[in-house]
């Protein structure tokens, strides 16, 4: 059996390792499109913050893939001939596959405003981007960050730790709008402002132009112009669908990403997809969803690999989850934190202490989502409670009174304790 994996991010790497263990005789070839060691984009902000060097971003130790008998190939896969089971590499060579995994990830979106191609305007996505940002983001440099979403906020911290003078521009009405409600977003914004970051929400960037040899002018709504040596663009990511888009003809069924069934299989039975490139389903609603997050990517990579080698394993759906540490304030969200129809919401906010907890239940008293600000202890139990998908029984009322008892609720509701079974009073 000959397995090819397009993309050496977390999904591709975990898939390659899983295939190797599950099918020791097979050929496993992992294609990395960048001329770099296999690395983690998630680690880039920590590189910029001087917490690690480039080696610290590597997903695996040198020699790891060779030792496992995984063939790591530094070639981008340019196209696929589905009928003949053949891929074409960037160097023009063709390779046959029995099963193909598309794990090509996502790429940063470029907003449709003038000046995005100027020197000094960078995404923060690749190691190359990180090096370019490091060269311009020096102590005292003026930097504008466009976008205060999840990725933007991780970069925000790295830029502040580099000692730059930072201005953040967010088009929506709050920071991390996909992760926090108005209460949580306002706490995060107040926290950042106390740390000396200027944050402008509900503000569009209209365009960027050169304002000197090394200076940009970032034009915003309401007439504001921000001079800067660097503009970092973090306005979301889009699945990398190059392999399936052949001109106007789409070769595999796609929605926002490559559509996969619960076995991570695409509309072509010998082609699978995992990670940010695929459109899976939401764990609760069953609706199609693209959640570009690390935990989902590695789970999908593992499940795709098992199914590719004939071990049927079904994915129960992707559970959105994010955790962010912004200059010391930890914010977390899980699942349907904005609530579901017919459900119930419990909220406790202490803005003065930057603490907030919001729990969302459905009409069957099951936890479906949560927001946590400033209370990071045992926060993983929220995942446990969400995945459990069982009514909370007596603990629903207890959590409504005292939402911070989530860890106790989890421990009590799990079988090990012989306590507080979901149905008990």
């Amino acid at each position, binding site marked *: 059996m000959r397995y090819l994996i397009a993309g050496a991010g977390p999904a591709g790497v975990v898939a390659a390792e899983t295939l190797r263990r599950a099918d020791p005789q097979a050929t496993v070839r992992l294609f990395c499109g960048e001329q770099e060691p296999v690395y*983690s984009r*998630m*680690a880039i902000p*920590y590189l910029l913050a001087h*917490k*690690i060097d480039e080696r*610290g*971003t*590597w*997903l695996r*130790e040198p020699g790891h893939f060779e030792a496992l008998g995984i063939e790591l190939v530094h070639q981008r896969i340019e196209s696929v001939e589905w009928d003949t089971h053949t891929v074409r590499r960037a160097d023009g060579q063709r390779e046959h596959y029995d099963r193909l995994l598309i794990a090509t990830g996502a790429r940063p979106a470029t907003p449709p405003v003038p000046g995005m191609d100027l020197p000094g305007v960078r995404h923060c996505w690749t190691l190359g981007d990180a090096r370019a940002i490091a060269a311009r983001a020096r102590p005292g440099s003026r930097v504008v960050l466009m976008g205060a979403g999840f990725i933007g906020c991780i970069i925000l911290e790295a830029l502040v730790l580099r000692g730059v003078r930072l201005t953040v521009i967010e088009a929506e009405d709050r920071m991390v709008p996909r992760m926090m409600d108005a209460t949580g977003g306002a706490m995060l914004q107040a926290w950042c402002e106390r740390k000396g970051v200027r944050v402008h929400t509900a503000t569009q960037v209209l365009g960027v132009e050169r304002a000197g040899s090394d200076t940009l002018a970032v034009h915003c709504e309401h007439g504001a112009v921000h001079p800067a040596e660097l503009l970092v663009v973090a306005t979301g990511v889009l699945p990398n669908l190059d392999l399936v888009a052949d001109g106007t003809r789409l070769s595999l069924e796609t929605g926002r990403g490559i559509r996969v069934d*619960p*076995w991570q299989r695409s509309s072509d039975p010998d082609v699978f997809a995992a990670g940010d490139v695929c459109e899976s389903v939401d*764990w609760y609603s069953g609706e199609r969803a693209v959640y570009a997050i*690390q*935990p989902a990517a*590695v*789970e999908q990579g*593992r*499940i795709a690999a*098992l199914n590719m080698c004939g071990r*049927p*394993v*079904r*994915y*129960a*759906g*992707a*559970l959105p*989850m*994010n*955790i962010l*540490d912004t200059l*010391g304030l*930890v914010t*977390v969200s*899980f699942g349907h934190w904005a609530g579901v129809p017919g459900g119930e919401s419990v909220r406790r906010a202490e803005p003065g202490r930057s603490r907030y907890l919001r729990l969302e239940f459905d009409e069957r008293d099951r936890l479906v989502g949560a927001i946590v600000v400033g209370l*990071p*202890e*045992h*926060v*993983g*139990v*929220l*995942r*446990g409670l969400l*995945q*459990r*998908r069982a009514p909370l029984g007596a603990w629903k009322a207890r959590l409504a009174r005292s939402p911070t008892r989530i*860890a*106790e609720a*989890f*421990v*009590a509701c*799990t*079988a*090990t*304790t*012989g*306590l507080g079974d979901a149905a008990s009073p």
Partner: protein
Amino acid sequence: MLKALSIVPDKCTGCMQCELACSYEHEGVFNPARSRIRVFHFHDEARYVPYTCTQCAEAWCQLACPVEAIQINPHTGAKEVIENLCVGCKVCTIACPFGTVNYNQATGKVIKCDLCGGDPACARYCPTGAITYVDADLTAYERMRMWAARTDTQAQASA
């Protein structure tokens, strides 16, 4: 044979020796807030439940780590945080559905139970035998692992 922590809540009196022992073993201070094991008090039922990582086979924390900073100790089977690789991103703290990986603000790294390299302090100092370190096959924690399999979003064997 690998050994594992066995926890029998019925025998726990809530004395908190395990939390203090864990904190002292790992941090050099007697501070329950720095412990990797936690005793939950259920006052309504007058019960105490010691709770820590089960070193589960699924190892969500290890799988989710973007920089391979959680690795298996071949001698104990424990999933251990490799401090100099951990970047403090905390993805493991939300990926672990048991909530047993936590962030240590003081070091900027995550912490979890590492079985103290094969001689867990919590078991050594538990005066009632509520926490013991026994052959892995025998542990009551198997039930928690079964729970993990039931609620696993990752792997549900299809018919």
